[in-house]
């Protein structure tokens, strides 16, 4: 059926310099149980098509949910009109690709498909998790949810390219809040970090009941804990905080469209400039960051981006040195840079822009125990709950759900409201130890916002725990 549709719309391609049709079908299913009560189940089905036209020095798009012949031709006319209007007024006159993709494919590997399990069984599992979360009276609020997303893309263009991709991912979310003396502390699992391209079997094998008990106990312990101290010390960031640090202070500043100024009115710019690529020392020699669309089960693993560029692993930072930006085929033309397959759109109704895909920290050679034992005075920080960085990606402040003090090489008491702040350029030079494969975790966030018109997209990050020297940490109101 999909091949038939692709062949059918192929016949609607207009006679212009270049045109692509990108059809997207998105299916979302969200099941939430809050304080033992099932919230209304959400099922969202969305499909439509974007027509992109490059013609006679102009560029335009038309997007429609009307998938009849008439609807697609109308959207094509709109795209041609905008291409005509933009001629001579474009920031960059794009040169379309010349290569072709011959029936390309990518499919997420799901051992147990989402639909195989009934709504009732999923709800029963969430109810069980709720019971485990509310295992103690001190828990004041709790809940659990599963979100499933499937994104199917069909692409065809006037070069004769065709490909089909099916990306599906699952995000479990658990929350437990505990109250002590009118102060609430929250622990979560999932949330911003644990989205992956997996089947329902992954949820069943994840021992979420036990995780629920752990975060409930953590929340209670945190509610009675002291505030994080204010001082400069060594910090270990756990993978579920590392991903935020990589995302905000490496991923975003390396996006080429920011460096070229497209995002200056909204998501911001970057301290990185074009002259830095190939020679700027971004961090210590322990820092190795890759654009890696090949990592199995990671959130943004795929074979093609939304402009039809073939995806492959490339280093962005090697031994601390900046090698290349996160720039798509078209952005790279504007900046005379190497490109990666990062042109991505949230759906059929938004044009693709430069996006992170899987931006990963390569594993190092230190075990977690070696990192802890090397610290005289420090803190382990886990699970992001607050993020803020300036529009040039310099001054950041991040908060974590849980801090655990480290004294003389041993983990000690837990502290609440643990925050840290710094400046990107200095921070990555303070990277002292990088965890080995034993702490390497494949994680991802489902909601990265950027672009005008606005778009959210799923982004993968895989990383081990890492140790940083001389970081400013501080707590909440005393």
């Amino acid at each position, binding site marked *: 059926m999909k091949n038939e549709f692709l062949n059918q719309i192929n016949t609607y391609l207009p006679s212009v310099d270049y045109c692509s049709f990108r059809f997207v079908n998105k299916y979302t299913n969200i099941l939430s149980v809050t304080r033992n009560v099932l919230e209304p189940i959400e099922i969202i089905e969305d499909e439509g098509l974007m027509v992109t036209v490059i013609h006679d020095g102009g560029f335009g798009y038309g997007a429609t949910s*009307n998938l009849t012949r008439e609807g697609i031709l109308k959207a094509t006319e709109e795209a041609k009109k905008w291409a005509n209007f933009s001629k001579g007024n474009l920031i960059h006159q794009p040169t379309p690709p010349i290569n072709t993709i011959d029936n390309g494919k990518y499919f997420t590997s799901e051992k147990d498909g989402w639909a195989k399990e009934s709504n009732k069984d999923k709800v029963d599992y969430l109810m069980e998790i709720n019971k485990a979360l509310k295992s103690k009276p001190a828990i004041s609020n709790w809940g659990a949810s599963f979100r499933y997303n499937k994104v199917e893309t069909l692409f065809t263009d006037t070069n004769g390219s065709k490909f089909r991709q099916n990306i599906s991912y699952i995000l479990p979310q658990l929350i437990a*809040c505990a109250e002590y003396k009118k102060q609430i502390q929250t622990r979560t699992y999932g949330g911003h970090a644990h989205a992956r391209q997996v089947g329902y079997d992954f949820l069943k094998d994840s021992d979420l009941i036990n995780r629920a008990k752990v975060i409930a106990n953590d929340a209670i312990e945190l509610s009675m804990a002291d505030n994080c101290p204010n001082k400069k010390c060594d910090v270990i960031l756990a993978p579920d905080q590392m991903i935020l640090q990589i995302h905000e202070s490496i991923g975003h500043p390396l996006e080429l469209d920011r460096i070229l100024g497209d995002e200056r009115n909204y998501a911001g710019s970057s301290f990185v400039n074009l002259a830095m690529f190939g020679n700027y020392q971004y961090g210590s020699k322990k820092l190795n960051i890759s654009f890696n669309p090949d990592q199995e089960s990671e959130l943004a693993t795929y074979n093609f981006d939304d402009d039809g560029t073939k995806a492959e692993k490339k280093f962005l930072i090697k031994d601390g040195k900046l090698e290349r930006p996160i720039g798509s085929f078209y952005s790279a033309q504007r900046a005379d840079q190497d490109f990666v397959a990062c042109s991505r759109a949230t759906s059929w109704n938004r044009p693709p822009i430069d996006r992170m895909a899987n931006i990963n920290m390569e594993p190092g050679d230190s075990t977690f125990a070696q990192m802890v034992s090397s610290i005289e005075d420090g803190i382990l920080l886990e699970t992001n709950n607050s993020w803020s960085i300036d529009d040039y990606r310099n001054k950041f402040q991040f908060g974590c759900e849980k801090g655990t003090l480290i004294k003389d090489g041993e983990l000690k008491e837990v502290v609440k409201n643990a925050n840290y*702040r710094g400046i990107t350029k200095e921070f990555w030079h303070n990277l002292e130890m990088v965890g080995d494969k034993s702490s390497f975790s494949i994680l991802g966030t489902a909601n990265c916002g950027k672009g005008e018109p606005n778009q959210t997209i799923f982004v993968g990050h895989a990383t081990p725990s890492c140790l940083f020297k001389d970081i400013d940490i501080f707590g909440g109101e005393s």
Partner: protein
Amino acid sequence: MREYFEKITKELFKNINSKEILIVNFDAEESTFVRLNKAKIRQAGDVKQISVTLSLLNKEKRNLKSSIRLNGSIDRDISTLIKTLNYLKRELPDLPKDPYLMYSNSIHSTSVSEDKSSIDDREILDYIISSANGLDLVGIYSSGYIYTGFANSLGQTNWHANFSFSFDYSVYNKNNNAIKLNYSSKKWDKSKYDIILDNGLKKLEILSNPTKKIETGQYTVYLEPSALNEIIDMMAWGGFSYKSNKIGTSPLHLLNKKERSLNESISINENIKDGLSPNFNADGFIKPENISMIANGEFIESLTSPRSSIEYSVTHNASSSSEYPSSIDMKEGIIKSNDILSTINNGIYISNLWYLNFSDRNNGRITGLTRFGCFLVENGELTSPINTMRFDDSVYSMLGTNLIGLTSNRDLLIDSGTYEERSTASARLPGALINNFKMTL
């Protein structure tokens, strides 16, 4: 579009039996988006989208909902929706009862429609591009209709059609300092656009002075309405929600519990009457025209959804399930525009704040950064731009003990957000003068 909506609902309701209730939520937009960088076009195009959410309820208090994107061709869409409805009917009996299920059963139909717009997007863009000749202008022009509909099988129908355009942009100088501007309205008026741009360019001239690096510490600051809006927006992350205050995750839960208070000049309403968003919620309840959430520094009333009203046995005020405000209205103060700089005397004038988040949510402590058009004020005059600074301060300080006062002028800020669809949220706010505002990095 309304006729299409009514045809769909009519067909759907024919398939509902006496034990079932069907709620139909309709969202559609016809939008033009043109993105600019350096006063040139970066991306330009049109988006047409229609979606419908079906919520099927039965008298045993079970419910299930499904959202579908539609084609716009009536026969095909009705067929798709009937298939979806049949799926809901099959799944519903297996689901547990929903003790917090509530829907409007008092029929209250409403309609707000606007005349067809006469603006010409391409003409406007020609003018914007030509008048920006030589300027480093970056931003987004968006325009078009937004349609929102509600109907239930009990006989209620609500319709809201709204046309607007928004040009949200900034102009940069050679030092990479910028001024942020916005012109949003229903009718394009070239002279109004010119005035906004000209006033912005005057400020940009001061931004051409050498940047002064300021140190961390406490400053007297003026927050323009758009900067204050960022702080109010953070307060709204659960702050006005009944449920969030009840479970304690609200950043204002201590205000709600009367443990803390704000300055007595702080009064904040949810003013649906003068806002742009529809006056009905997704369950079909009609929102009050005005809700006083904070008055004279004290918490008065939360936004309470029908679900919360059952869970906590309280009266609801037709809030959405998120219990998030959509039409903030903050009472003005007495400081005249001409007195702002002399009141600051020595301090910082902040046009915009950015990327706010909590550093201690329990205690309403917020961090964020200065962005666009922020100036040093020396001896009552704007003198030079400042470097980007991070603040970290509590709402109980900023809008409590350290608040000098609010301005007598207010700005209507129309949300230019376009995640999934164009936003209809708005806020009407004064500016705020604050002492001892904490800059930390």
